[in-house]
């Protein structure tokens, strides 16, 4: 029942977003020209039409690290809420968990996963 307001808000926002998308189509001029929808690349002709082929591998590594640590954050959230009623047992338990977490972080650090992956330039 508490989420009714949230769902109503969600529906209203979807509506507003759709209106925002169609505003330019409704009110803007429609004068097509040959190169107006040409992808921007400093005004030169494109070297290749598709830009979706290459991206830096460093971002992939960041995604992996996020998966590891965000799942552990999901485990910690319930503990933070009930920590007040757990006493010393809850503290020791979670201290060990955070210790293991830190060990994982140190491992990734030592392996060089936290460093930015520069591309090797060959001459």
């Amino acid at each position, binding site marked *: 029942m*508490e*989420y009714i307001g*949230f769902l109503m808000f969600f529906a209203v926002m979807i509506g507003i977003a759709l209106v925002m998308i169609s505003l330019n189509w409704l009110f803007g001029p429609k004068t097509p020209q040959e190169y107006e929808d040409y992808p921007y690349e400093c005004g030169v002709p494109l070297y290749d039409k598709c830009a979706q082929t290459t991206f830096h591998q460093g971002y992939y590594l960041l995604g992996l690290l996020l998966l590891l640590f965000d799942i552990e954050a999901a485990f910690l*959230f319930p503990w933070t809420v009930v920590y007040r009623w757990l006493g010393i047992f809850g503290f020791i338990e979670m201290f060990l968990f955070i210790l293991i977490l830190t060990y994982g972080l140190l491992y990734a650090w030592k392996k060089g996963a936290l460093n*930015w992956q520069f591309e090797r330039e060959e001459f």
Partner: protein
Amino acid sequence: MESVALNLAVAFVKILVILGIVLGVGAYLTWVERKVAAHIQRRPGPMVVGWHGLLQPLADGLKLITKEDLFPRYGNRFLYNLAIVLALVPATLVFAVIPFGPEFEVFGYKIKPILTDVNVALLLVFGLGSLAVYAVALAGWASNSKYPLIGSMRKAGIIISYEVAITFAVMGPIILAGTLSTYQIVVNQIEQKLWYVWIQPVAFVVYMFSLLAETGRVPFDIQEAEAELVTGFTVEYGGMKFGIFPLVEWYIEVLSLSAIAVVLFFGGWSPLNIPFLGFVDPLFFLGPLSPFVWFLLKVTALFLFILWLHWTLPRYRIDQITEMAWKIMLPLALANIVFTAVIAPLIWK
């Protein structure tokens, strides 16, 4: 039956108020930002449209609406438009769980100035915050152009790096409050007579760094980087479609995250705090309005602080930003959790 209808009507009014705040104030913050930026750089800023440029946001909006609807020819039209929806909707929905003030009574009917007071409010905030990654990644990918792709990859990398730091940073205040409900966190701070910033300064600093990074504010605006990437992932967007992205990133998200920071660290609507002793309210003459004014003042102060940083600092490189997230912010946040767990029993007494 009558109470259900009444509840729905109240929820509807709250939604209208939030929409007014988000879209109205959000649009006018562009004027505030331009004025602040101008005065930092010793120039007057917008002066022509209306008194001291007060009508400038309306003129800007009108200009954005009357642009031609363009679409990059090799892109994916569905994902291109979906990115806009994914940027606007989650960022605005965060306002549903922000408490603007304490409970008050109208005609004997109790109203909480918060749309959905749920017990997992903070999880909701960070769940919705994570969705921002999809908007950014899709915007760059669907444009099928090189500059947007580089910009969106940078921004997505920054967001997911600081996502981890920010989730660990907010755990300190949650341990002290013992709840995830935003309304209850503020109530607990008032009961404990303590703004959590006094014993969580480390968490607050990590939170502020993450706020700047997630909203793409200087010094973390490498995805915009006007000089090299033009505007990053929004290069291929035009008109109102372009206008949505800066509005969401720079204003709506900054506002919502500042409000969450005020809730977590500065006691929400409570007046000035002397740790463990009580509260001093220099605005007592406002009566029942004073809590709302305090909340507004705190959010405004944080927002102006962020503007101040934006217009005075240079920017970091992408490798510096991500390495700082993993090597400094994350260990700091983890140490802060252990520290908080140790001293928390002292606070609860």
